[in-house]
């Protein structure tokens, strides 16, 4: 099947006073229609930068230095801004992390939801009806009344539901959810995840789900991409990743997940060492300094991407075929 989103060899650099920070390096990522792809990794590993690059919303000091981003067969890299705006909202939409700040506080929900339909020729009344229908779908009670309210009258969970409704309003082909539940408590998190799963039947697009929570990823994703310090280290179907993780980082990440620890322990396991400085990268494998299985070759040269099984690739010399 033709991929919906096809990222090849993408590198992004940030110009900072300390020098060039290589935030993303040689990223490969494919999202096929109708799939939910998870991106997992610790803070600062480049998850959000990757998502911003796909949305064309990179910060002013960021620069795409190599690679391509193809979306629906169209090249997004170096696309002029007006063409971007045509894609954003209609074909690509995004739900942000913090629902308390992602809605404009001084405009009613109705106005905001009508405003984002500005590319449609429908009448204001039809746009309002469509907005109300979506509010109902995401589980806002009494949407005809509530749509006239301002964001401060809604709780965090309800605001995230509204943000999801706004993102899906234009029926995008790809929904990007950037840690949509991180700012919510556990009960609401479960509700929002349930909602996203349920909405899969309402909307036939794909979802790119960014999270640092492995449990959530396991819950809703079809396949997972594991990122570390700006690189994709492993890509696999969800079951394969959890049952036979191939990259040492993924293996360590799974042993550190509190939900998977069965014995009673006084201290939680952690991965020793720290993430390397992205402005002064070490030669060789990015994870070599923290890797328990590193050998000479890991410190000498950077590993390529090796195929472990169908749809399962890993960037590690342990699986090298050369």
């Amino acid at each position, binding site marked *: 099947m033709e991929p919906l989103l096809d990222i090849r060899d993408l590198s992004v650099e940030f110009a900072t006073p300390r020098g060039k920070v290589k935030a993303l390096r040689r990223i490969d990522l494919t999202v096929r229609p109708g799939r939910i792809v998870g991106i997992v990794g610790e803070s600062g590993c480049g998850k959000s930068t990757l998502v911003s690059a796909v*949305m064309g*919303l990179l910060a002013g000091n960021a620069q795409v230095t190599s690679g391509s981003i193809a979306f629906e067969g169209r090249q997004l890299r170096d696309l002029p*801004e*007006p063409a971007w*705006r*045509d*894609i*954003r*909202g*209609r074909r*690509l*939409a*995004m739900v*942000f*992390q*913090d629902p308390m*700040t*992602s*809605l*404009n*506080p*001084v*405009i*009613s929900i109705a*106005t905001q939801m009508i*405003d*984002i339909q*500005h*590319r449609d020729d429908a009448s204001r009344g039809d746009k309002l009806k469509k907005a109300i229908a979506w509010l109902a779908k995401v589980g806002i009670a*009494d949407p005809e*009344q*509530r749509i*006239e*309210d*301002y964001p401060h*009258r809604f709780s965090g969970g309800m605001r995230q539901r509204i*943000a999801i409704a*706004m*993102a899906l309003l*234009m029926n995008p082909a790809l929904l990007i959810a950037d840690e949509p539940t991180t700012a919510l408590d556990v009960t609401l998190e479960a509700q929002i995840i349930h909602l996203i799963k349920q909405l899969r039947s309402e909307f036939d697009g794909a979802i790119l789900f960014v999270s640092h929570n492995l449990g959530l990823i396991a819950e809703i994703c079809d396949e997972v991409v594991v990122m570390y310090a700006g690189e994709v280290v492993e890509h696999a179907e969800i079951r394969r990743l959890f049952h036979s993780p191939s990259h040492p980082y993924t293996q360590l990440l799974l042993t550190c997940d509190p939900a998977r620890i069965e014995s009673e322990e006084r201290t939680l396991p952690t991965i020793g060492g720290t993430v390397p400085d992205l402005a002064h990268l070490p030669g060789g494998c990015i994870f070599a300094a923290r890797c328990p299985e590193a050998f000479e070759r890991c410190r000498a040269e950077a590993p390529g991407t090796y195929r472990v099984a169908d749809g399962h690739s890993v960037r590690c010399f342990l699986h090298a075929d050369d």
Partner: protein
Amino acid sequence: MTTADAALATPLPAERAWLIVVRRLLADPLGTLGLTIVVLLVISALSADWLATHDPFELAPRQRMQDPSPDHWLGTDQLGRDVFSRVIYGGRIALWVSLTAVSLSLFGGLVLGMLAGYGPRWLDNALVLLFDSVRSFPTIMFALAMVTLLGPSLGTIITVIVVASIPVYGRIVRIQTLSLKETEFVLAERALGAGPIRVLFSHILPNVIGPLLILASMEIPVVITIEAGLSFLGLGVRPPTPTWGSILQEGYQYIRDTPWLVIAGGLPLILTTLGFTFLGEALRDAFDPKLNRP
């Protein structure tokens, strides 16, 4: 169902927010006083033609420097003109100048401030330099230069005030725009396909306009005093036109014999300034959600 649940379950229309502001305003005695003074001033300016007992330009050399009497409520000036009528018409000028100047500089500051805050870096630098140069130039020197060039008139006064106060609004709008453009809701709007114009007008403008209107209501008395000051110095409106500043200036020469002339020109100036200041401060408090009063 508890009362709190009941309160939450009843949907409140959006207009309630304005009712809350009005209620807070009226709960503040100084705010009520300010509002009363401003409303009275507006009524007297609008109905000056009916309120004035005499023609403010009518000269009556035989009736110069008269004391207040039933015919001339505030007496007459050195040309025999009725002071009460001149004060009423002066209020019209003061209000006209201040409202025009404030709304023009508000508009100018809004446009330039949003351009500086949202536009490219070089434009921001250029506009900030412009704002700072205008602010560093003494207003009175600027007024003198403008009057010398264009001649004293209402238009010159308004131009001077607008140019001098655009940076006040422009700076505030710029700072607000700079911080608003980094907020997640603006990013979210851009992620849903909004272009710069839509972001500025649909999202940044509604967030900026509230504080700006409060600033404007507090700028009105400043503008009225600037206009009076320029008129007092003879740089303002041309002589036959009655303004509070020119009434003060003319009366100033006769302050030993006929002090009511100065009082008649000065008292409305003080009252108006106080009225707008009280109203502006009360509005600021009423709109401030952090002052959580009933």
